[in-house]
């Protein structure tokens, strides 16, 4: 272990001497405070905070990701190219220990820099209300809607398999399948029909209602607020792009119980812009003692169009479950997990590629991982024609790609949505336990048998 730490210490020194590392560090040290002073968001304190955290965290995460890739590749390829490896590997240190030592050095640097810049972002975020001289109302609002960590509940997807199967049979019987879905494989048709049916369940025609029920809702403090975050879509967009809605939130099981009902039910009439996230805040005491909560939405005749709640993000319930600080630390851990993966990837690339090629390789993986949802969907659409080939070749590799966009910490911090430890555990298991270790294993395997003084004529 002493030898591994010796390599790690030298790697940190090497990284700090790199001009690109110094440039990144100085850039962040300058940009983060400037960002804190200049962002305005939508003009409100909450918008300002959300914009700063979003930009600050994204910028830090991106630059540290680039830095990790560069340092992890450089530390290995530079030793080989400049032949310092000759005097190191001929000492009593195993090649695997050398790799692990360098990895440890890169990660030590990452943790130090992430702590530094995370601390700057956190400090600026906490001081911003004081800095902008926010009113008590604004402070109260951000305390409830930003400086918090809220549990997110989304309605479960309804089981529509029977309806889909029946619809498929009907279309087939009426010879409509080929008219509507020409040359589509059956699996793809079923997928499209399933989406269609699910969307129908999230659509409220004029005068009709939608009902969502949640169980086991346990807020940290029942005296705090409960938030319904939603986004409307509408079949015919009104000229002012506003839609009406009649909301009922509480224990709707007791609607018939009259004034003696134990639980509270809040009726909230709203008029909100379409295709924009909005939040309804009600006291959390509307949740029943057994954790039951229902949300009803009625599409009033004023709309004169069908209101639809998108399947992915049309509606969610938020309530306070932890503190902002705890959530912020977990957001930092999410970034760190990403950096661990990138460091291992860099080690793997550096173990057999030259510096520029390894950088290119890692950047492609990084950028692909940053838009993994798009990539997976693109390959899935390709599979309509080359299904078998895709399934047995590319699909496996695509699944091995990291999915940075699905665990982006700003998507949690901005809406003050809690990052649960279970979620971090899952990400760690996949990104570190599987993808990172796989990369590291490749690096160790390749480096163990590599001819370090190889000459190709």
């Amino acid at each position: 272990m002493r030898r591994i730490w010796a390599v790690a210490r030298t790697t940190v020194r090497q990284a700090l001497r790199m001009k690109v590392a110094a440039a990144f560090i100085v850039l962040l040290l300058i940009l983060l405070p400037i960002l804190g002073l200049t962002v305005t968001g939508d003009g409100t304190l909450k918008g300002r905070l959300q914009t700063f955290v979003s930009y600050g965290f994204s910028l830090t995460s991106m630059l540290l990701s680039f830095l990790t890739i560069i340092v992890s590749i450089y530390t290995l390829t530079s030793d080989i190219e400049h032949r310092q490896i000759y005097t190191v590997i001929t000492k009593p240190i195993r090649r695997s220990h050398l790799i692990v030592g360098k990895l440890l050095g890169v990660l030590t640097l990452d943790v130090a820099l992430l702590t530094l810049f995370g601390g700057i972002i956190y400090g600026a975020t906490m001081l911003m209300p004081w800095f902008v001289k926010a009113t008590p109302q604004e402070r109260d609002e951000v305390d409830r809607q930003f400086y918090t960590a809220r549990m997110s509940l989304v309605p479960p997807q309804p089981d529509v398999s029977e309806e889909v199967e029946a619809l498929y049979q009907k279309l087939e019987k009426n010879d409509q399948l080929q008219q509507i879905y020409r040359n589509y494989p059956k699996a793809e048709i079923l997928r499209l029909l399933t989406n269609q049916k699910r969307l129908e369940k999230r659509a409220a025609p004029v005068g009709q209602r939608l009902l969502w029920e949640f169980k086991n809702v346990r807020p940290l403090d029942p005296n705090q607020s409960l938030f319904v975050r939603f986004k409307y879509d509408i079949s015919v967009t009104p000229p002012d792009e506003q839609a009406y809605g009649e909301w009922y939130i509480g224990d709707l099981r007791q609607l018939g119980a009259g004034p003696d009902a134990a639980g509270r039910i809040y009726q909230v009439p709203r008029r909100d812009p379409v295709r924009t996230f909005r939040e309804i805040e009600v006291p959390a005491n509307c949740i029943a003692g057994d954790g039951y909560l229902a949300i009803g939405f009625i599409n009033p005749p004023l709309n004169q169009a069908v209101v639809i709640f998108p399947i992915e993000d049309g509606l969610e319930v938020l309530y306070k479950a932890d503190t902002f600080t705890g959530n912020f630390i977990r957001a930092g851990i999410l970034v760190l997990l990403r950096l661990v993966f990138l460091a291992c990837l860099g080690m793997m690339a550096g173990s057999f590629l030259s510096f520029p090629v390894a950088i290119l390789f890692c950047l492609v993986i990084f950028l692909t991982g940053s838009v993994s949802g798009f990539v997976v969907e693109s390959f899935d659409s390709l599979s309509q024609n080359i299904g078998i080939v895709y399934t047995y070749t590319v699909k496996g590799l695509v699944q091995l790609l990291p999915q940075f966009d699905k665990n982006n910490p700003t998507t949690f911090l901005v809406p003050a949505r809690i990052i649960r430890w279970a979620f971090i555990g899952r990400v760690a298991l996949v990104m570190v336990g599987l993808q990172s270790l796989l990369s590291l294993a490749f690096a160790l395997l390749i480096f163990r048998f590599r001819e370090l003084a190889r000459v190709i004529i």
Partner: protein
Amino acid sequence: MDYAVETIGLTKVFSDWWGRAKVYAVDDLNLQIQHNEVFGLLGPNGSGKTTTIKMLLGLLHPTKGHALLLGGDGADPKINARIGFLPEESYLYRFLNARETLDFYGRLFGLSREVRTARIEALLDMVGLKAVASRSVGTYSKGMARRIGLAQALINDPDLLILDEPTTGLDPIGTRQIKDLILKLAERGKTILLCSHLLADVEDVCHRIAILYGGRIQAQGRVKDLLQQTDKRQIVTDAISDAAVDRIRNILHGEGVKFEISSPMERLETFFIHTVAEAQQQAQPTSGAVSTTQIGDFLTGGAQKESIIHKLTGTSEAEKPVATPVRAEKVAETKVPKREGDKDVLRQLTTQASTERVAPAEPSQTGPVETKTPDKSPQTRKKILDDLLGGSSPKEQKPQGEGKEGDSGHA
């Protein structure tokens, strides 16, 4: 038999990008270097010296054959713990300073803090870089980098020292110092593989040599056996009178041999060392390496001091690199071969008349000649420069190792 270094049919073929064999860098090399031997691997550029060393150390994989270091694989950390390696250039981290560099390598050997600190100071003293130890290695001249490279190769007090072109870029004092160091380490039972194309350096210190060309051994054997001119004799005397010279001439004339009498010139190396030593005594400032003639205590028998440190600090023996028992605690800096056997011949020559030159005749068969060994006080180890300046001809400075006693003693 157990060898310090052994290669069996070692072959390395370098290929092109398509994997086609292009160059036989080393071809069926069979080499055996015994323990406690200073072995020189000679050859012109591209003869396969460095490739051989890289295969010995596991930096390259042999195409065919095997390479063994200290009876094991050169890539095995247990073997590496007993080896010191100085590559053909000092490949060091430019951002570390000299002290940090040695500390890093000391840590790789698992040396305790106390041992590391002691050795780093001793080595910095030895290579004359103590005054610039806080400067990053990237700012060093080639010679200074070479010195710190040598220091890193010695920090574990290795049993086997592999030096690839160790004197490249060094000033004459540094060169002399390395040669002295090699002799001292050899006397302590260390094995040294010296790879060089500077023939004079190799000749001065090596017991045996092998000459490589085209990846194959062209000649191999003891330096004495390979270089001795059995058909010629050389006699070196103190200043003698012209009359004595004339008498020698007459004798040689009578023998009918071709001869030449002249006053030997001082070696430029000796003159240079003398000049620099004088400048140092006047304490003239320098931003480079300070020329010293010190050898680290732990390399010359100071291992006993370290043992005490270990006992006092409780450092386990397992942390120490394996050290070969020290054969001699203190050794004289310069060994002069004895030539007592030729004294009688010299006396006879100086009492007879001489002629200027005589036509060559049958070469006379004479026995070994002995010369007086200069007085060596215990302080000489600290005053190597004085010894060097007061030393005799270059031949007299050859090591008195095994098989060397007759090298310069034949007249």
